[in-house]
């Protein structure tokens, strides 16, 4: 905000040194452009490397078979990891989505008070938490109590990661539904819960789906909570109370092995994971965010990785 005195000062400043100021302007523009180039080059290099190296590893066997013994000629594949990631996504959505949507309903319909603000604040803080802390917490709460690593523990940890994202995006999209819709419902004598479920939720459908899908993309790539909860395995799923494999975990394990073949497989697994995450992100943006424009900004940010 510019005060009158400042303005007079600026005017005096701007009248002189025109040449020097124009040069400074050009210099800053060059620096900014350089910043963009320096930052974008490694970021694009990651994508190029993963796509070129990963595509080479792909084959039907790679996608469906169990991993071979470490260091042997039989390479095997990453079938259990893909299966595990899908199972984990399904089970954590089973916990995270209903709780998150109901919490979002609370924040938007009943949350205009002190308790609502408190919940909103801590929800935002939880969304930015280091996920490894959530992993350790789940380890103490479930793995130590039950006495073993399990699919359930992993799903619970991931549901905590996805919960704040679903909750916040639900709230934002419910708030976009005009109040007049709700009032029209009340005027017809419809009960509040039915107004919310039939009118408000269906009006906010695309926002809800966006939030849920972005949170799924986020948990698909989480590694840290899984280290403490599912352990990893080289077999297909045995039961929900046993260990399981997941794509990010498999990438981590493969990267620490000293064989060329495991490196190639690591790139392949990273390729599959990136395709999964980016296709959800791009699809969601293309389908929903484009139409709503600026209003759904928050979704983009919450969907990003930590």
């Amino acid at each position, binding site marked *: 905000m510019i005060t009158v005195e400042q303005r007079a000062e600026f005017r005096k400043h701007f009248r002189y040194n025109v040449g020097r100021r124009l040069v400074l*302007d050009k210099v800053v523009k060059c620096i900014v452009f350089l910043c963009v180039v320096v930052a974008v080059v*490694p970021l694009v290099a990651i994508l190029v490397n993963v796509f070129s190296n990963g595509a080479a590893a792909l084959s039907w066997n790679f996608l469906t078979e169990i991993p071979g013994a470490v260091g042997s000629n039989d390479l095997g594949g990453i079938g259990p990891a893909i299966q595990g990631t899908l199972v984990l996504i399904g089970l954590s959505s089973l916990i995270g989505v*209903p709780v998150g949507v109901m919490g979002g*309903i609370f924040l938007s319909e009943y949350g205009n008070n002190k308790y609502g603000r408190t919940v909103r604040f801590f929800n935002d803080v939880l969304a930015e*938490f280091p996920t490894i802390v959530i992993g350790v917490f789940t380890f103490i709460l479930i793995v130590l109590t039950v006495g073993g690593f399990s699919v359930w523990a992993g799903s619970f940890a991931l549901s905590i990661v996805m919960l704040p994202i679903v909750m916040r995006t639900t709230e934002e999209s419910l708030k976009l539904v005009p109040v007049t819709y709700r009032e029209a419902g009340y005027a017809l004598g419809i009960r509040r819960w039915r107004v919310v479920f039939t009118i408000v939720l269906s009006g906010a459908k695309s926002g809800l789906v966006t939030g849920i899908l972005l949170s799924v993309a986020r948990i698909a*790539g989480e590694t840290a909570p899984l280290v403490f909860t599912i352990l990893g395995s080289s077999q297909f799923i045995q039961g929900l109370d046993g260990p399981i494999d997941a794509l990010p975990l498999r990438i981590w394990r493969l990267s620490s092995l000293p064989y060329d073949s495991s490196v190639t497989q690591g790139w392949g697994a990273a390729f599959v994971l990136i395709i999964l995450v980016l296709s959800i992100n791009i699809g969601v943006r293309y389908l929903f965010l484009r139409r709503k424009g600026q209003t759904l900004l928050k979704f983009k940010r919450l969907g990003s990785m930590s």
Partner: protein
Amino acid sequence: MMTIKMKKGSSIADKIFKYVAIGAATYVLVIIALIVINLATGSAQVWQKEGISFLTGSDWNSVDGRESYGAAPYIMGTLVTAGIAMAIAIPLSFGIAMFLSELAPKLLRTPLAMVIELLAAIPSVVYGLWGLLVFRIYIQNWIEIPLHNLFGDQSIIFAGTPFGLDILTASIVLAIMIIPTIASISKEIMLAVPNSQREAAYMLGATKWEVFRIAVLPYSKSGLIGAIILGLGRAVGETMAVTMLIGNATGAAAFPSSLFGPGQTLSSIMANEFAEASQGGLHLAALIGIGLILFLLAFAINVVAHLLVAKVIKSHEGAVLA
């Protein structure tokens, strides 16, 4: 005259609905409370044995009978890697944000912004894999070896044989990871500055840079600080990429002195040593204690960030931030 019969009070279904909603919202608070309680009780053992020296000590020995734990090197490692990463990432992300909000032609703006937002969605383990297999070699050959040859072992920060798996590589990859986050939030904050501010400055004859400096920057200051702190929160909590790249020293050796030496952060020591810790032992309690330190650090950072960003929303109605 027509009369409308109205039922008094709200129905039971409405009440149930409200309480279910409240319950779901309370779940978040319960989870956070449980995290604090569980981490505190899980690590009680190590706090009892080590006391304050768990924070200040640098011994890290898990051999039976000689057990001793101090987290100071890892706290320092976290702060140093996050600090270096922020020093690299802040100017670059502000450059990107300024380019996207002020300078970029319309044609370039949308695709570039989209690419940057998508990069924020790439899993950290993929950044780690890329850093380990590709980037490390470039760092080692193009930056570390020339610097080492130039300054040699006499200088403290460039001492040690460059190997590529060290504090410098971990910090740079960390910076690459948080640039998309800081850049896209800052861009939104800069775009939220009303155009009348810019036009007033243009009217006075300011150049683009001067417009940015006198009109955009003061207006978006606290939001930008919030963006920085959110980035810092991510840098502090980041696990996988750092674990894969930092070289994983333990004990006093992990004290970050040279950029080319291996180090360890709070999150990487947990990920690395967790598999070796036996249940109920002091080693596990120490790792959980490290989790508690990391939790408190990240919690404080995030609370400050959200308070700052919330202030921006309040002062500029209509700007959708945070």
